[in-house]
């Protein structure tokens, strides 16, 4: 019965536990016969690392292999604080040693190809891994040339800093910010929905302004947006006005904010209606889709993202492949690290139900909170709970909300507390991935 132990026991989980025990009693032979399942996890980020760790703790008889090309993980969350000068790269870099110590076999290689029929994944180094169940958490790919002139080479000049990778994108952007001429112009290009981390660009604007306010107070930030609205908009715009005066100009799509072409040589952003904007520093966050391995395996639909069963995260296009994190079609859930972590647990439970003899959760709940730092001691958040529907996901009514608005003179305690909560969130979620 120790096999039934869970790390957390909620009322809902307790019901599952009883059901699981009954199933175990009814089919003890089946359980024993199937205890050598192989779970393969592709991608060692918020989805994949959370899945691997959760599986090792809760399904000790299942072997867990994690494939991830990077030998350490640089988080996107808190990357903007490097721009603000409040964190160093080492603060947001995490080792896979904790997962190894838990018995996860960690392979640092790139998963190249999935043979869904044969239940095999081929790695770039040539190894072939067999699996019973695959958790695929590959993240996003950037759509090179979706903005004319913005390809991988251009991203060396105008960094995107929209994936962690080896940390070089975010440190390049930080170095460029430090080298910005006095009174220089920082241009940002922000994509339309859906994209990774909906409040991320606006936290980035805030953190860049936070740095410039001290280092280069006559500099300007021009934020060109392909949308007319964004996450926590009122809270961000209040903060910008309170903290940074007129340093930040946000240009929505209805004001010709959609950037269609960039010219790295002449340092130009060119808008939908042909306006040319000279920038001294360009940060281009291009449109995105699911990482190549998911699209190459035929799992994505025309949108470029992977439709999944909202209870199990099994891809609609293939059995035994559960796709979590930013790569799937999860709206209205955001493409956030917290959603990847939260859904990872449901996906693992569903994937291993047959092998373990413990049923999947019949009423899964997905949690999200996105904290953003708008300045020093200035945190804001949006929180919600989501549940599956027959064909997707829905936010549970009245389950969350955003931080209260109001002048800083009245809200300073709240903002300071939320900045602390954000730090605590970061510490606890990275523990839940890597410790």
């Amino acid at each position, binding site marked *: 019965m120790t096999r039934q132990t869970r790390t957390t026991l909620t009322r809902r989980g307790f019901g599952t536990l009883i059901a699981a025990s009954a199933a175990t009693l009814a089919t003890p032979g089946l359980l024993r016969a199937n205890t050598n399942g192989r779970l393969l996890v592709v991608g060692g980020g918020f989805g994949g690392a959370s899945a691997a760790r959760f599986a090792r703790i809760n399904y000790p008889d299942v072997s867990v292999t994690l494939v991830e090309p990077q030998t350490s993980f640089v988080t996107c969350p808190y990357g903007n604080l490097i721009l603000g000068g409040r964190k160093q790269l080492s603060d947001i870099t995490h080792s896979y040693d904790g997962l190894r110590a838990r018995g996860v076999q960690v392979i640092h290689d790139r998963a190249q190809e999935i043979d869904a029929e044969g239940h095999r994944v081929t790695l770039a180094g040539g190894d072939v891994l067999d699996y019973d169940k695959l958790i695929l958490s590959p993240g996003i790919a950037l759509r090179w040339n979706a903005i004319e002139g913005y390809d991988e080479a251009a991203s060396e000049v105008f960094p995107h800093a929209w994936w962690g990778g080896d940390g070089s994108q975010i440190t390049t952007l930080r170095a460029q910010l430090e080298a910005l001429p006095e009174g220089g112009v920082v241009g940002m290009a922000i994509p339309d929905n859906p994209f990774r981390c909906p409040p991320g660009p606006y936290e980035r604007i805030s953190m860049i302004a936070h740095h410039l306010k001290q280092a280069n107070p006559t500099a300007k930030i021009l934020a060109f947006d392909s949308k*007319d609205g964004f996450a926590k908009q009122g809270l961000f715009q209040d903060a910008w006005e309170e903290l940074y005066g007129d340093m930040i100009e946000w240009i929505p799509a*209805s*004001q*010709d904010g959609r950037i269609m072409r960039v010219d790295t040589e002449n340092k130009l952003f060119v808008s*939908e*209606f*042909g306006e040319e904007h000279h920038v001294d520093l360009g940060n281009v966050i291009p449109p995105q889709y699911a990482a190549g391995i998911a699209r190459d395996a035929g799992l994505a639909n025309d949108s470029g993202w992977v439709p999944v069963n909202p209870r199990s995260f099994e891809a609609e296009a293939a059995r035994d492949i559960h796709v979590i994190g930013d790569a799937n079609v999860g709206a209205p859930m955001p493409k956030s690290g917290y959603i990847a972590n939260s859904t990872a647990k449901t996906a693992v439970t569903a994937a291993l139900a047959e092998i373990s003899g413990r049923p999947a959760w019949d009423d899964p709940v997905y949690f999200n909170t996105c904290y953003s730092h708008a300045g020093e001691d200035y945190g804001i958040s949006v929180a919600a709970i989501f549940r599956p529907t027959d064909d997707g996901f829905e936010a549970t009514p009245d389950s969350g909300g955003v931080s209260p608005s109001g002048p800083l003179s009245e809200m300073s305690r709240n903002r300071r507390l939320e900045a602390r909560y954000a730090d605590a969130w970061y510490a606890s979620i990275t523990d839940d991935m890597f410790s």
Partner: protein
Amino acid sequence: MSDLHQSTPRVRLPRSASAGDTIEVRTLIDHPMVTAVSGPGPRDMLARFEATMNGETVIAYDFANGAAANPTFTFHVRAAAPGDFTFTWTHEDGRRFTTEGSVRVT
């Protein structure tokens, strides 16, 4: 009147085209299109969009309450001869927002 939205019309069309080519014309105007039917007023709506080429109407559209904010039109015109375009958005209160553009035909 003073708090009514001041709009900036925008258009994009190619600078030149070969005779007989079909060219794409894109337009955008930032306007809240407040109907004041079920929400707060005052009503602030555009009534009509019209584009002319060399003085002749190529597209005209009368807005109704269902129109979204920031209306955008994309349409195609055959460029048989050089074209001087005028784009006009007319407010219900009579104000007009106009912008122009021309296409050389080679």
